[in-house]
């Protein structure tokens, strides 16, 4: 049986840890916390991955919890979203050292819940308890211009995530829906609303192709959504000439409490989820399921009490094949853990 093997436990945060985010290419992990800091972690040596150390602590820029941290696609910048209603932009000296907060983006009325860079690095999205999603254009000299303020969610927006290749944004909300946002001649608009979850949608992630989304909810289920473009061969109606997203699989009966985070590996296609029931689970698509419109997914590995008795708030797969089997998790215990997915021999 496949299993998750604990590689390392990283101690240092002084409060619950909310999110983990891997550098796009290096073995560096960024984590953010209620202690108002971001910590950067790296293995102590290039050959021994069981010993990790905190290589930098980014602090002083936020007055309240840092809820979300995201690397730019080059890995030269970090964005931090805080309950203090600002987004911080951090830049390093080029050696990956001496991070400095070079810009602060203001505008949201209250807590910012999530921040994400587009695949090209030219756009940044933020979302807030003020129910809005903001899209920012990244300009030269650490200048950011707000292109759009999207106000169609009726409640707190929990997370934003970009399509891996295209400038398509997805947002997940306390209003139980996911919305898909696209641009049409400088105007951003809601292209689809994904309904099905019966409580807060806390997290979502695209697969490597960007044709599928997995979402995680307080309703204790994960849903897998597929995009159907106009004139699709399946005959799914696309009334507005827009692609529509439909649930093709619901994973229920696995987690016993709210699912706070989900990560879809771009390397091997595995889905990892983290829950308030203290467990991490890994799901794989059944090889036997041939119908692309009704796939089945099976839980192939799990760790109960992965952070002891504490909620697990975030999971993130390593983004490249260099360490595609690595999974980072963060919890209410203030700890960061690195796991390795060990498949059958």
């Amino acid at each position: 049986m496949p299993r998750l093997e604990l590689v390392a436990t990283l101690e240092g945060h002084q409060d619950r840890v909310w999110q983990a985010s891997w550098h796009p290419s290096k073995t560096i992990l960024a984590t953010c916390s209620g202690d108002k800091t971001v910590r950067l972690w790296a293995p102590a040596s290039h050959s021994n991955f069981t010993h990790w150390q905190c290589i930098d602590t980014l602090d002083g820029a936020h007055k309240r919890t840092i809820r979300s941290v995201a690397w730019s696609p080059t890995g030269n910048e970090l964005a931090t979203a805080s309950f203090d209603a600002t987004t911080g932009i951090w830049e390093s000296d080029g050696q990956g050292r001496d991070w400095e907060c070079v810009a602060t983006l203001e505008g949201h009325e209250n807590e910012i819940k999530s921040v994400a860079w587009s695949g090209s690095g030219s756009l940044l999205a933020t979302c807030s308890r003020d129910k809005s999603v903001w899209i920012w254009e990244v300009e030269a000299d650490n200048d950011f211009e707000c292109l759009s303020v999207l106000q169609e969610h009726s409640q707190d927006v929990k997370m934003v995530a970009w399509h891996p290749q295209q400038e398509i944004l997805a947002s997940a909300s306390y209003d139980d829906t996911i919305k898909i946002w696209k641009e049409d001649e400088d105007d951003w608009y809601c292209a689809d609303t994904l309904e099905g979850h019966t409580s807060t949608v806390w997290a979502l992630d695209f697969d490597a192709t960007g044709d599928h989304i997995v979402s995680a909810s307080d309703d204790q289920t994960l849903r897998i959504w597929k995009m159907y473009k106009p004139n699709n061969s399946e005959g799914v109606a696309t009334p507005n000439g827009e692609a529509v997203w439909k649930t093709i699989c619901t994973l229920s009966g696995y987690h016993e409490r709210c699912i706070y985070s989900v990560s879809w590996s771009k390397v091997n296609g595995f889905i990892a989820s983290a829950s308030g029931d203290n467990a991490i689970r890994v799901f794989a698509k059944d090889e036997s399921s041939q119908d692309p419109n009704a796939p089945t997914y099976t839980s192939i590995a799990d760790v109960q009490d992965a952070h002891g008795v504490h909620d697990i708030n975030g999971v993130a797969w390593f983004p490249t094949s260099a360490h595609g089997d690595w999974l980072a998790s963060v919890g209410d215990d203030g700890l960061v853990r690195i796991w390795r997915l060990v498949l059958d021999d």
Partner: protein
Amino acid sequence: MSQTLINANPTVYNLSKNSHRLETVDAFDDSVDDPIDAQEVFDLIRSISDPEHPLTLEQLNVTQHEHIVVDDVRNRVLVEFTPTIPHCSMATLIGLCIRVRLLRSLPERFKVDIRVRKGTHQSEVAVNKQLNDKERVAAALENSHLLEVVNQCLATASLRGREAVPSH
């Protein structure tokens, strides 16, 4: 002042004299397993003060022993409370006070769910959702004004059902 109160004339209930745990020899014996039960949770929250009256949640019948379910083995606590009136705008604050009290007092292993009793509040679904969203609870507790109000309500919590000694 009284015109601004949400519920100016709440019904006041007598403290139930018989609802105190009888101290047994086992309770003082550290070698005997002493699981958390509904009585313990009730004792923790019964003397929380109402945000707008100098009365406890027990005196206002907001919290009752029968509406607490504890599963010590599975580490679950469910507290249902009854707002004094169905449109009580203090319901979220009262629920937050109960949550904070249990957060501070119960062992970390417990997962706590807090809800208004079914049918006792017109915004039941919205209040329940907010009280059980830990991100919003965390954000609320970073608000120093709100935290101060919560702490005031919790100042009497340690009475655990005993009558307050009147101050002068």
